[in-house]
């Protein structure tokens, strides 16, 4: 299977080939790596790379964003298979200039700072979500007009929930 990871602005081509048991040949930019990857729990892996042992915690967020923890360091990148990437590229053109504000955690909407139709700047705060006694102001990543608001004040939202759309 072929994948493309985007890390630090750079695209990296990765192929994964299963070779029996828990063994894989993973090719990164044409270099082959033989690993024995055992799944310990749903997102937890014990990886043997030659004889070196790694414990790796792989979190996949929506939109194929990954956060991988190894020995206290957190690596962030996107990764998806080639077909999916091609699909998104093809369909994604029309979405330029749009930005969906989603909730980075489960929580409760305590305040909407904008109304539909309002003009906002990039990085302007648009909504406040509370979790664990802390209020977190979320910003629009683009300048534009608030196209649609999907939530009401007081509403409980899940991780990754669509909050509002700016375009």
């Amino acid at each position: 299977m072929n994948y493309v990871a985007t890390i630090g602005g750079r695209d990296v081509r990765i192929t994964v080939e299963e070779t029996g048991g828990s063994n894989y040949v993973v090719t990164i930019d044409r270099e082959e790596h033989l690993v024995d990857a055992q799944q310990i729990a749903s997102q937890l892996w014990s990886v043997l790379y030659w004889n070196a042992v790694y414990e790796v915690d792989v979190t996949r967020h929506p939109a194929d964003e990954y956060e991988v923890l190894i020995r206290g360091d957190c690596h962030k990148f996107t990764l998806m298979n080639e077909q999916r990437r091609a699909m998104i590229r093809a369909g994604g053109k029309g979405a330029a200039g749009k930005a969906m504000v989603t909730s980075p955690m489960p929580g409760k909407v305590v305040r909407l700072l904008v109304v539909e139709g309002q003009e906002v700047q990039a990085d302007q705060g648009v909504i406040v979500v509370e979790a664990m006694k802390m209020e977190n102001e979320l910003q629009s990543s683009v300048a534009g007009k608030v196209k649609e608001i999907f939530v009401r004040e007081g509403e409980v939202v899940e991780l990754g929930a669509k909050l509002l759309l700016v375009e």
Partner: protein
Amino acid sequence: MFQKILIANRGEIAVRVLRACRELGVRSVVVFSEADRKSLHARYADEAHCIGPAPARESYLDIDKVIEAARKSDAQAIHPGYGFLAENPRFAERCEKERIRLIGPSAHAMRTMGSKTLARQTVAAAGVPVVPGTLEPIATDAEVARFAREIGFPVMLKATAGGGGKGMRLVREESDLASFLRMAKSEAKSAFGDDSVYVEKYIENPRHIEIQILGDRFGNYVHLGERECSIQRRHQKVIEESPSVIVTPEVREAMGKVAIEAARAVKYEGAGTCEFLMDRNRNYYFLEMNTRLQVEHPVTEMVTGIDIVKEQIRVAAGEKLSFRQEDVKQAGHSIECRIYAEDPDRNFIPCPGVITSLRVPGGPGVRDDSGVYAGFEIPIHYDPIISKLITWGKDREEAIARMRRALSVYVVTGVKTTVPFHIRVMRNRHFIEGNFDTNFIDQVFFKEERQRPLEHQEMALITAAIQAYREERMRSMTRRAGDAEGPRSMWKYAGRPSGRKLG
């Protein structure tokens, strides 16, 4: 001793108190909100009472409901933990009225120590050093200048009516005093309509040192030595230790004595903590007194062998302190890391959610004070602290080595935690050398971290790709299996993740 104690709290501290009750052979009652039915404290208690909806003000903070649960269960005493009702004098008074023993000091002691100025005046009168300064506004410029010279520069000018940093000016040299005083006054005038200011000594790069004390109703007091809590993020303690690398035996003894005097000044009963700021020359200044059990009490327990919670309960039950000052010995070194459900790699945003897997470290010198378990859904409604990891070593080096090794095998998936943050602090050179103050994390550590290159990026990519691959395979296999065999019971899978592996 009490027959039954109600614990008016949740999370790790409720579990901590439950442990003490069980060891004492006292029956325990907990209260829980509707969001906490499956919380550890509600699973571990002998009795549990639901006292209302998730928001704390409708449950854990509702005095009437807590009292009602205590009445209903015939609890003779209430342990408030920390937070919620722990330092609420009205709650203390209510308990007194209902003839339920509150495991903590009197309402009077709470009230006195709860007011910054009253506390300052009270302890100063008892001979406790406070940050030098004028508590009253000063009339003339000359007076300010004289006073500043007296206590020495740098000094802080503060608006008497102030708050939020308005009307505050740090003055490092006498030559700046006149102009900075004018600015402070004019700022204070425009912000608060009152231009009076007062002067306080500015403690540069202070370290946070606190003294744990215990008192009984017979006027006996002991201190259990100090804790250092200078590792703070945005003025929140995140790592604590005992002893402090900068406290000498002489300073310890002196601080212990003044902490006891502060406690005696309010006839303090139970466990309490005097917090001090310490400057580079080991001068220390009273900051405030916490009239409750503190989050970081375990490091003191680890080096003294004294169970602070059990002592707290014993003295509340009218017993005498079971030991004297000379029986208290600090042995070795202990460190605590607070584990929060926050993502250190996304600016510490809170991460409530389901803990999908959990492996807590063990072995020699490791203590886990937790309020959660694998499968538990951390509610969105409460503090993000989910547990504390504490290590002990024969010296600071061993305590750090153990913390590093314990953190390296600490696994929490499903929610993000501050475990990786602690791993990074434990390998920071300044931390290892004991070279830090209360500004260390925000001003030094984060800057250094931004420059540190990440390791094992290739392994991160490899494993993520394999996980993506396996998920796709699994989806297509389940689809096929479904077609052939019909739907499977989730039951079977949940119980035996690798059920076929035998042999």
